[in-house]
């Protein structure tokens, strides 16, 4: 899909890389020549994926395991990258959780967990990423938000709030890091055909598709293509933007 040398020599970290959008992003970055740390929570779960990505090349992949809701684990991960590569060029904050609930039934614990995983992780990761990136003259941070964070969705107040927070973080970090040549952008997928969608009833699935102007669900690769672009020098002058990948969906 991508030019095999677009990201040659670049080091990337992708969180939530075990499935769906994160998995497609990791593949896209490796296909563009990057050395990619693919991260997930469950120890061992990405070992085979890292080997397969490396075998396919032209970039390569390493597996790393952390819960992004744990700031100490985030620090350890960046320390590992610092020790191994001494650089980081691309950070994709993709890991997230979505727990649907009418607001009257949402527990405070669920709210806190959602903020910690979806939003606080973006801010904590930025603390470490900025310093590693600044050493080598800059970098690109790509945060996954959601169409729900831009426009809202009934039954998703907590998730939407966390993803709206990601937009605020993206815009502020872009301004704060601009002088260090670190770009920060957000990608806002609409309805993408992943395991999150598989759980829907056929009726709900049809209803979702009918709200999409282009008449189909998005593919994880549709999101990955934009992320590879934002990671590369092709987007060298783009920062602080929120770009929808939603096929013209209306929510």
């Amino acid at each position, binding site marked *: 899909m991508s030019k095999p040398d677009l990201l040659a020599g670049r080091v990337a970290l992708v969180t939530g890389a075990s499935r769906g959008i994160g998995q497609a992003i990791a593949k896209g970055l490796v296909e563009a020549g990057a050395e990619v740390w693919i991260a997930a929570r469950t120890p061992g779960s990405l070992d085979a994926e890292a080997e397969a990505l490396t075998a396919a090349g032209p970039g390569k992949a390493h597996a790393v395991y952390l819960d992004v809701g744990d700031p100490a684990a985030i*620090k350890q991960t960046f320390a590992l990258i*610092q020790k191994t590569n001494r650089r980081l060029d691309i950070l994709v904050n993709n890991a997230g959780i979505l727990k649907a609930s009418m607001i009257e039934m949402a527990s405070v614990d669920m709210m806190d967990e959602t903020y910690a995983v979806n939003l606080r992780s973006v801010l904590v990761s930025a603390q470490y990423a*900025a310093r590693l990136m*600044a050493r080598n003259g800059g970098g690109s941070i790509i945060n996954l938000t959601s169409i729900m964070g831009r426009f809202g969705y009934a039954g998703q107040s907590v998730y939407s709030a966390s993803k709206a927070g990601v937009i605020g973080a993206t815009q502020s970090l872009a301004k704060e890091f601009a002088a260090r040549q670190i770009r920060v952008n957000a990608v806002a997928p609409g309805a993408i055909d992943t395991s999150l969608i598989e759980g829907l009833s056929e009726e709900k699935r049809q209803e979702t598709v009918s709200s999409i102007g282009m008449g189909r669900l998005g593919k994880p690769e549709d999101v990955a293509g934009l992320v590879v672009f934002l990671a590369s020098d092709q987007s060298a002058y783009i920062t602080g933007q929120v770009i929808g990948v939603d096929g013209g969906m209306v929510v």
Partner: protein
Amino acid sequence: MAEELYEIVAKALLLDRSAITDDLTYNSIPEWDSVAHMALIAELEAAYDVMLDTDDIVAMSTVGAIREILKKYDVEA
């Protein structure tokens, strides 16, 4: 060793080496503002191959304090 730390601080803050002392304090001169502090932190991390905690970055408010805090990371600066 003090010499090396002074060189790093001077380079990050774009100051002459002769302007650096242990008592030089964050935000006391225009050259050491919050933006320069981040440049300094990046220089320190690269030079000594450490990853500093956020609390320590905040606490590095003088050159002397930087030297003390670096000891926690097994760095004799």
